[in-house]
């Protein structure tokens, strides 16, 4: 509060009574333009109360003269965007994957849609850049467990792996150790052979024994030279790409306990156009066949 109001000797103007470090504030009138601007802002704000939602009430709020609502504005924009996309989505729904990929405009739309659908639905397991994690395949590389053609990718997305869907893809590897199919030394030998198959350092003598066991136990699914079999979802063991790791320890654990990946079926959850866009997008990442 103002106290000690006095007349300033130099200017003859009253002070406001405020003093800081010996400096006193003069009580000069505000510039007139400033005052008018201030009054206009007050009038303006009253206009705001009338036009826009402003005052909270007990269980609602004043809605303003024109019923403006920012939420409604967003809804309208979303509806507008959906409307604008519907022509493309319709075309994508009726076109084959090849037709989409050969139509520049459709392809661009599908890639953009696929990218955003991937970020929402797939990136939790496969990573934002589809780079994968241990147990979750990298979709950028050229190794495909179930096939890397657009149709094959779409099949996987539609029905998943080991999902609840009847048409799901399914692979099963026996747990050679825990189910006591193989003895520990036999497992070690097989592991050495797999190391040899993939061109890594290995014990040559043990690998020889391992080869016999491999042919007997593993070749049915992984093939005699370990190239894998896509119909069964058996991975290629002779290349440099490993889903769970290709070192001795990890291989031993895999053979002993077996590994199962799971992916949900997306048919029914996502519409067909979105799944098609996803297939086209994943195929475009650089490893598609």
């Amino acid at each position, binding site marked *: 509060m103002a106290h000690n109001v006095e007349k300033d000797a130099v200017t003859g103007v009253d002070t406001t009574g405020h003093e800081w470090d010996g400096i006193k504030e003069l009580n*000069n*009138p*505000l*510039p*007139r333009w400033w005052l008018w601007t201030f009054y206009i802002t007050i009038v303006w704000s009253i206009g705001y109360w009338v036009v826009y939602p402003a005052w909270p009430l007990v269980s609602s709020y004043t809605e303003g003269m024109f019923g403006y609502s920012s939420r409604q504005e967003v809804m309208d924009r979303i509806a507008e965007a959906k409307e604008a996309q519907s022509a493309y989505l319709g075309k994508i729904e009726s076109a084959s994957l090849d037709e989409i990929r050969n139509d520049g405009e459709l392809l661009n739309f599908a890639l953009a849609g696929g990218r955003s659908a991937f970020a929402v639905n797939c990136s939790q397991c496969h*990573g*934002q*850049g*589809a*780079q994968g994690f241990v147990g979750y395949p*990298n979709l*950028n*590389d*050229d*190794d495909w467990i179930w096939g890397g053609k657009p149709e094959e990718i779409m099949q996987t997305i539609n029905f998943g792996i080991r999902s609840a869907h009847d048409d799901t893809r399914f692979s099963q590897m026996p747990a050679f150790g825990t189910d006591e199919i193989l003895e520990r030394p036999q497992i070690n030998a097989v592991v050495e052979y797999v190391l040899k198959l993939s*061109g890594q350092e290995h014990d040559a003598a043990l690998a020889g024994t391992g080869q016999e066991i491999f042919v007997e136990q593993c070749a049915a699914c992984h093939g005699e030279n370990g190239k894998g079999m896509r119909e069964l979802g058996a991975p*290629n063991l002779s*290349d*440099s*790409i490993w889903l769970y790791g290709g070192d001795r320890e990890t291989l031993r654990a895999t053979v002993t306990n077996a590994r199962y990946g799971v992916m949900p079926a997306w048919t029914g959850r996502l519409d067909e156009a979105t799944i098609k866009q996803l297939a086209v997008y994943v195929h*475009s990442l*650089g*490893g598609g066949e």
Partner: protein
Amino acid sequence: MDQASQVSSPATAPQAAVEKIDVDAVNKKEERSLYKARVKIYPKRATGTFRKLKWLVMAATLAVYYLAPWIRWDRGPNAPDQAILIDFPARRFYFFFIEIWPEEVYYLTGLLIIAALALFLVTSLAGRVWCGYTCPQTVWTDLFIWVERLVEGDRSARIRLDKSPLSLNKVVRKATKHVLWLLIGAATGGAWIFYFADAPTLFVDVFTLQAPLVAYSTIAVLTATTYTFGGMMREQVCTFMCPWPRIQGALVDEDSLIVSYKDDRGEPRAPFRKNQDWSARGDCIDCNQCVAVCPMGIDIRDGQQLECIHCALCIDACNEVMTRIDRPLNLISYDTYVNHERRAANQPTQKPRLIRARTVIYSALISVVGLIMLATLLTRSTLDINILHDRNPLFVTLSDGSIRNGYTIKILNKQHDVRRFEVAVEGLENAVISVVGHEGTSGLEVPADRLAQFRVFVAVPASSLADEQQDFDFVVTDLVDGNRAVNDTIFRGPDK
């Protein structure tokens, strides 16, 4: 304070050729109030050297502003034929032979640096002459005052009109003035839009109501600002809104030519009497002509003031009076502080020193920046590339064990013809390149004056990677003229 009336004083000088004008400076040094209503200024018409100079500068600057967008410039079939064009939709800026892409806006920075330095230079030479002659605010205000005088008459007539009761004559004159002001304002905004589109086409579109909304709103906004700033606010823009007067005080020194009053010669001032003896008095006859012509409403005899824009109309007014009473000219003149001091000490005055450390340094800096800009302009390449390395994933291991990195390459073709390019790498052993959607690495087509984007994969056998990160270059070569652009980037592999 009856500021707005004008009376002659016949009692004191019955045959004097010069009447005293009853006018007060808006910021008289005796009473400088911070807060009070604006005192309306009625600038009187001045005649003389500097007024003529101001008319010339006004004609030249307005001519440049209104005519520049209409100059044509042949750039071939794929580019606009307008010499000066800021093409926002295509993101190009054209200035005669110069064409600027968005990533080259540093030219604008260079231009602004030169403009600032040039302002420093002229200010150190002759004070706020930019403000007094070439500032758009001054040019348009001057034009508006000219219109005002045309319609309502000179200072005394305008004061009389403002004081007179409402009449048809008053309404017609006021309305005419405002309509003319608004027309000038509309023409100002109207000229501005032509810098952003093909002028002849837009001209027709504007009048047939075919032009885009942004054109009309630009005209509306500039009409409003020109009308308000030039007609209503005038000197208040310079005094209260513009930051420049505060800065400029620091740029003048004792050798700068400043519009100033020689108080040693003028004082003591007294009214003029015919055949009087000048030995006992100063040359200033206190006629107030210098105050009446001042568009800023100040009294130059109070010394240097923030409001003064160095337009020198007070010099013209005073010199006219000095001629009529047969006294030496230049009681008010462009003069240096050094000379004021020398006169006070009874020393001979000297010619202003134009070449000083300050002016030399400013000139040198202007030349340096100008030369750098010229050099980069002359060596400007018509081919440019940008390379984006994939961050996620950083690299991909392929089934044969090789490591692959993904890149997005943007090729900028700044020529006005379609060009075809080949992409290659340098400094990366055994690299295999593939371009997504293309057979091979050659024949990448980029449309005229456009940018095209390509996805490029580079794969390298793991064995030939010495480190987890390696630097190498992408080389893009024009298949026809062999023009090359080289850009360095990195190749990432697994941790070693």
